[in-house]
């Protein structure tokens, strides 16, 4: 949804439709957008859910960046005792390979924090390009592309990704590429409907009458005006990407071993829950839960602020 609303309180100001396309008005529009970003940030900082989410994500980012400083042991080191319950020397216990679970949980933040945001950004980029083309060009291209998008949407992303990654082999870049490709149709659908609402407006007509190329109209006129829904889509996609990457790595199609990825840790250890060794599964599982919830709290806050 893009509210077309050029009152001063609007978070998503649209250059007045009758503005002449001279440099001054464009600079004014840019300044307006900057002020709006400032306002959005101010509204976000008033939301406890947003601040909580950002704090949790920051903790994991610090863990990912400074693993070697924070982790008490080497996350890949096999030498300690097997399946030791949590104690002072191993606060989260050790896993079935005798590795320190706390150190592995800290190191496990690395891959997912690299893969998920990159995959989401590439997916949104692809979706924006495809959605702009579909919504702006319409016609046969839109019809065919819509059919393909529909076919993609009728299968769960996890399932398609699982198929693709098993054929392509798992490496971080394959996971990124596959998740990004599968996010593209979803984003394209959202962007397309936003473009459809915009393309009938006067500012688009006037740009076309001025003789601007389709490319210019799509990227310089329409794109800035649908930036609200795109930013919402990006944050929502990052949440889904964390979810998808964790699930894929639990199913054996995530970052390749010996990565201490959280999903892979759950997959390695869930069979020993039955023997009473719950900690080697529980702590990585809790880490996944905390990260996805945090990202979703951020996404939800941004969505509410942008749409209000």
């Amino acid at each position, binding site marked *: 949804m893009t509210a077309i609303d050029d009152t001063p309180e609007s978070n998503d100001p649209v250059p007045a439709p009758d503005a002449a396309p001279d440099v001054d008005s464009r600079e004014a529009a840019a300044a307006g957008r900057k002020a709006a970003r400032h306002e959005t940030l101010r509204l976000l900082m008033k939301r406890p859910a947003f601040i909580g989410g950002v704090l949790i994500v920051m903790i994991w980012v610090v863990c990912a960046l400074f693993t070697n400083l924070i982790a008490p042991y080497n996350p890949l080191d096999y030498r300690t005792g097997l399946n030791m319950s949590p104690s002072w020397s191993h606060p989260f216990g050790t896993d079935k390979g005798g590795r320190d679970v706390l150190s592995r949980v800290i190191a496990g933040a690395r891959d997912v924090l690299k893969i998920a945001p990159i995959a989401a950004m590439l997916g949104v980029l692809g979706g924006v390009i495809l959605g702009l083309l579909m919504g702006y060009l319409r016609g046969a291209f839109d019809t065919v592309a819509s059919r393909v998008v529909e076919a993609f949407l009728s299968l769960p992303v*996890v399932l398609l990704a699982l198929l693709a990654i*098993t054929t392509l082999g798992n490496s971080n870049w394959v996971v990124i590429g596959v998740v990004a490709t599968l996010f593209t149709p979803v984003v394209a659908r959202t962007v397309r409907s936003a473009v459809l609402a915009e393309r009938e407006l006067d500012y688009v007509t006037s740009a076309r009458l001025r003789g601007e190329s389709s490319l210019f109209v799509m990227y310089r006129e329409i794109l800035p005006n649908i930036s609200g829904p795109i930013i919402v889509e990006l944050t929502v996609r990052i949440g889904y990407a964390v979810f998808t990457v964790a699930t894929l790595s639990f199913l054996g199609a995530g970052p390749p071993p010996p990565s201490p990825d959280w999903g892979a840790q759950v997959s390695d250890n869930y069979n020993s829950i039955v023997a009473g060794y719950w900690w080697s599964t529980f702590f990585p599982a809790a880490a996944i839960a905390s990260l996805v919830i945090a990202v979703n709290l951020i996404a939800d806050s941004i969505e509410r602020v942008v749409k209000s």
Partner: protein
Amino acid sequence: MVITLWMLATIVFLLVNVLPGDVGRKVLGPTARAEDVARLNETLGTDRPLLQQYFTSIKNLVTLNFGDSYQSGTPVSDLVFPALGRSAKLALLAFVITIPISIAAGIFAARREGKVSDRVVVNAGLASSSIPEFVTASVLLAVFAVQLGWGKVYANVPDGTSFFGQLDYLLLPALAMVFSYFGYIARMSRSGVIASLQSDYARTATMKGLTSGQVMRRHVLRNAMAPTITVISVQVGYLFGGIIGVEKVFNYAGLGSTMLNAVGKKDIPVLQTSVLIVGVIYMVSTLLADLLIALLNPRIRLDAD
């Protein structure tokens, strides 16, 4: 729908065949002799050109001939349909629990919009739907099945178990799914009810003296349920993304486990059939949702005429 199905079949075919992985080698393992591998590829038809394989697979699909499993040689339908039945049983239990609870929670929150209890429902819903199913499943397994001794660690139901005996096996994995689907459905029914409560017809109904229960039942719910039904139908289709993880945690021999095994062994006929079944389920459930919405709301029926 036929076109979408054909595209789906093509996407799946492309996905499993992009890289010319040697099927015969994968099935027989790395120690098999080269001539055995070649012979197997010839019998399976996997040495033929890709385009020819594609047409064969589409032809087989149209004639509902799903072929034989590369791995065990048994007909795919004998493998896939019983597994689908087991997954459906699990999924049905999950939905029978989820739908009433989450719609009730949505209505409860909508009537207390902005209060603490509303925010609790909204945020609990957001949190529960954002956690992957396998995470919930493994935590439930650790806490209930192992620590407290409730429910079963392995969800496979022995033959001949009574109805309530089966619940003992299936309840925990179903609860893991309930947890994931609760959030979406509760949030959607909440916002539907809020929008509907603010409408003119709800106000008219209140003003003509109906009790709030009557307004809710006769006027609000009918209109508010359309987006909720749509979300439920999408969940039915997407369920198979999450059920793979749940089935793996509880070692349940459903369609998810079948797909996961087939993926590892490059058992293409089993994979293709399973994935297409998932696509068909999604399409049928969205179609049913559209029909149900039209049934609830006469205005939509009139529009279509």
